[in-house]
């Protein structure tokens, strides 16, 4: 958070004259570099999840593929954070598919090391290490790049507390007999992806099951470049 403190110090020092020449001062809230989204319909504080200019609640979860504990507070990259479940036959296919495209874009543009993807499963019972490896392969996620982490809460109750209550990616388990589309139980859920700057503030909350990969990549590149 050092940069943020520095910025606050600068603005407090009467740097209003700089506002016109430094793009990162365009916003009233200097915690973010992107302007509010043009298509936004609600103020951030009216939304039930963290949105533009708000801090991402800190999350600490294990990465079952590496055995590491990943704490968002300790990361200094630009983050793309989403929730999903791997047996999801439809909407997550679109969502994760677009994010896999963004990941490849970060490689193509040479910014892969500045961006970290955190895909959190809210179905820890089924999404174990093996299931997640197979899922990565099927969804064209490149695990060798090293900037994509699957995070797995230890149990369904933790998933509920962290993904639903803390991040606002609401989900609800649906019994097998009420959903014919997958074997076993299903979920209804919000499709929500956060673009978070290195200081931990939300630049974008894409509420879509298929955010356009090119748009997300462009936003991500801007955040990486302007966060220096």
């Amino acid at each position, binding site marked *: 958070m050092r940069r943020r403190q520095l910025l606050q110090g600068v603005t407090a020092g009467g740097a209003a004259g700089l506002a016109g020449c430094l793009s990162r001062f365009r916003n009233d809230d200097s915690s973010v570099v992107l302007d509010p989204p043009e298509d936004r319909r609600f103020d951030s504080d009216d939304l039930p999840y963290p949105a533009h200019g708000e801090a991402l609640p800190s999350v600490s979860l294990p990465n079952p593929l590496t055995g590491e504990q990943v704490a968002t507070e300790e990361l200094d990259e630009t983050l793309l954070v989403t929730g999903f479940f791997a047996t999801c*036959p*439809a*909407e997550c*296919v*679109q969502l994760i*598919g*677009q994010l*896999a*495209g*963004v*990941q*490849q*874009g970060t490689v*193509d543009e040479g910014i892969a090391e500045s961006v970290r993807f955190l895909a959190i499963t809210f179905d820890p019972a089924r999404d174990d290490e093996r299931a997640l490896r197979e899922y990565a392969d*099927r*969804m*064209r*996620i*490149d695990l060798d790049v090293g900037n994509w982490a699957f995070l797995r809460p230890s149990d369904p109750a933790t998933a509920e507390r962290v993904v639903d209550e803390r991040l606002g990616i609401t989900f609800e388990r649906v019994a097998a007999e009420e959903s014919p*589309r997958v074997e076993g139980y299903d979920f209804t859920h919000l*499709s929500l992806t956060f673009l978070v700057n290195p200081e931990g503030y939300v630049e974008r909350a894409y509420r*879509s*099951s*298929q*955010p*356009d*990969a*090119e*748009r997300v*990549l462009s936003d991500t590149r801007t955040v990486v470049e302007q966060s220096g």
Partner: protein
Amino acid sequence: MDRRHLLAVLGGTVAGAGALYARPWRSAGAEDAVAVETLDAPGSETGTTSVPPAEGPLVLEFFATTCSVCADQMSAMATARTRVDASVPFLSVTSEPVGLSVSRADVREWWRTHDGDWPVGLDDGTALAQRFDATSVPTTLVLEGDRVAWRHTGRFDAADLVAGVRAVTDG
């Protein structure tokens, strides 16, 4: 074809199509028709097609190469095609980020592997999926001009799609 080129095509298409798509409850505009790049693949040729069509039926399917249900449904699509009027066009479209994690060659290979035999195209920037609110795959629609006459998300029987098409062509 890159995005700019597609948008240029789209601009040209929409200028003439606005009046056709005008509906009383919704103003027609540039966002209403989408230019879809079609691929050189079995049953499909390189080109651009405007969706929705100015008039007449179109069976439009959204799929993804990463979607196993979509793979399963290819046979239902193929079966339905043999049972409806041969003049009814079919178009399958992927909204995947082609050019990033998915290549045109990947789409062609998937198409060949799953015995596709009709036009297959790319939904650049998910514009078409947004136009028809196709948030899941597979989503299959029967259009008559820009009117959605039938739509289904997930698995379907060929007979259901055939009935959906015939409701338009026989009506």
